[in-house]
């Protein structure tokens, strides 16, 4: 999904870097607070980051293009967009430095799309839907799906803003349309992960206020 190195003009690269910079500074302070308050959730943080690592390394060829899942669903619902953006910044830096995938000048834009915008949509959706009577698995699935798809829509918008709005639709076709089957599989992967986390150590999901005790009991029944 990433915008390639140098493909954003200087002013747009600087703009997205500034936006992401502010988000990252606030997020790191927030992350410190969360970890200091509740050290027990560190393993869940690690495993959420690990899912981003694994899933974003899977380049899956679909249709005319090849895309990869973002894997941000789990950390979005467990920790929210702020902490997800920090985890994503690590992954994106790795890919920009060693894989020529994405880039340093476009890191700001990519981190905003993958680490903040998609997860923000997912987080809001999850917060809203978990209070309703909708099946919790379906809620997790939809949140992950939205995180993946939202990321690609944002990426298309970022390129279109810099290079002319006419490229928006063909870009959406390349990025977003082919992302749908991937996002479905990714959503199901996160649902299965969610189910097993609830099974082996449901405390994590209670401590991070992801689900209530009744919901946890229902999953494990």
């Amino acid at each position: 999904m990433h915008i390639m190195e140098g493909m954003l003009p200087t002013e747009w690269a600087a703009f997205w870097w500034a936006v992401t910079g502010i988000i990252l500074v606030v997020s790191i302070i927030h992350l410190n607070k969360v970890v200091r308050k509740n050290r027990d959730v560190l393993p869940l943080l690690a495993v959420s980051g690990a899912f981003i690592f694994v899933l974003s390394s899977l380049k899956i060829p679909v249709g005319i293009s090849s895309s990869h899942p973002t894997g941000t669903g789990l950390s979005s619902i467990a920790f929210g967009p702020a902490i997800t953006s920090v985890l994503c910044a690590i992954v994106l830096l790795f890919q920009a430095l060693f894989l020529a995938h994405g880039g340093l000048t476009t890191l700001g834009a990519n981190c905003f799309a993958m680490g903040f915008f998609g997860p923000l949509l997912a987080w809001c959706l999850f917060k809203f839907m978990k209070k309703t009577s909708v099946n919790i698995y379906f809620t997790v699935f939809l949140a992950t799906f939205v995180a993946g798809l939202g990321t690609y829509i944002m990426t298309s918008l970022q390129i279109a803003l810099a290079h002319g709005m006419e490229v928006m639709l063909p870009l959406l076709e390349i990025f977003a349309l082919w992302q749908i089957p991937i996002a479905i599989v990714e959503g199901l992967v996160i649902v299965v992960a969610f189910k097993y986390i609830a099974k082996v150590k449901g405390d994590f999901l209670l401590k991070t206020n992801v689900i209530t005790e009744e919901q946890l009991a229902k999953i494990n029944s």
Partner: protein
Amino acid sequence: MSLKVEYLLIAAVVLLAAFFAFHALTTGGELIASDDAAEDLIFDHNPDYEPIFDPIFEPPGELESLLFCLQGAIGALIIGLFFGYYYAMNKVKKREQKA
């Protein structure tokens, strides 16, 4: 909740694989990365555009797969550790309760 999510996942993966196989067979396996497709689109639309910066280090093909693999492996290691640790912990707890 009688429908198992695991079966759904397997079905979705099989469908995706079948779709990909079908596509590869009908088009001769020509696939471009979406990043490159986007790059081409930008150049088609905006031929005078000069990338403002080049990647510092571009790994050759084989090395790129290796590094992608490494990234996935690091993640998988942590996931395995997490689930293995708590799975074993639950087992030990159960055994202690029995004893």
